[in-house]
């Protein structure tokens, strides 16, 4: 399973903070993961998760495009941070 976490505005807009979904053996690219989420939970996920400035992390590190998401990964989508 891949765990997907949402924070702040995205959590509110999509109405959930955590979902889990089974991953294929060879993993998913970011675009494939987002399509899978939109397929399960609605097109609004595609819209919100691909909006400008959305940050993606994989296993608590900011995601780089060359990576693939695999079973056991913790993925998070969140807006630009505003701590401090």
């Amino acid at each position: 399973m891949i765990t997907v976490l949402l924070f702040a505005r995205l959590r509110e807009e999509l109405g959930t903070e955590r979902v889990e979904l089974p991953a294929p053996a060879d993993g998913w690219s970011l675009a494939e993961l987002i399509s899978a989420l939109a397929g399960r939970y609605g097109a609004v996920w595609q819209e919100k998760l691909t909006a400008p400035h959305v940050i993606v992390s994989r296993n608590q590190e900011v995601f780089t495009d060359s990576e693939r998401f695999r079973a056991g990964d913790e993925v998070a989508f969140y807006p630009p941070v505003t701590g401090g």
Partner: protein
Amino acid sequence: MDRFQVAVQTEDFDVGAETTALQQLEAGAIATFIGTVRSSADEPVEALELEHYPGMTERQLGKIVEEAVARWPLAGVRVIHRVGQLQQGARIVFVGVASAHRRDAFEACSFIMDYLKTRAPIWKKQHTAGGASWVEARASDDVAAASWDQ
């Protein structure tokens, strides 16, 4: 005591105790920064709600401190970030840095805050008389963080 510490917590922190812990390292210089909930004149903020990504926040703060230690000769660093509901005027964040010399302490303290503001997964929602809204990220914070790479 571990000379390099980061913490994310709901409870307030004791500035005196934090500074004393750094002073006991006998490094020579201590620089501190304390961020508090500001009150804007036109629309008073009644409360601030801070959300974070448990686990990743601590991990990223730890990495920021490691980067600071790699750049400046530091004897000790303490970073505390509060989360949850905070009232107007409340303390939000503490960064304390001990070093042999003031310039290194000032610069490392500033660096840690600049990186924290752009890398730590923490979000502020402000509650005013007009309702609640997420605080927007500021481009100037990205510029400040990027300036350390030049």
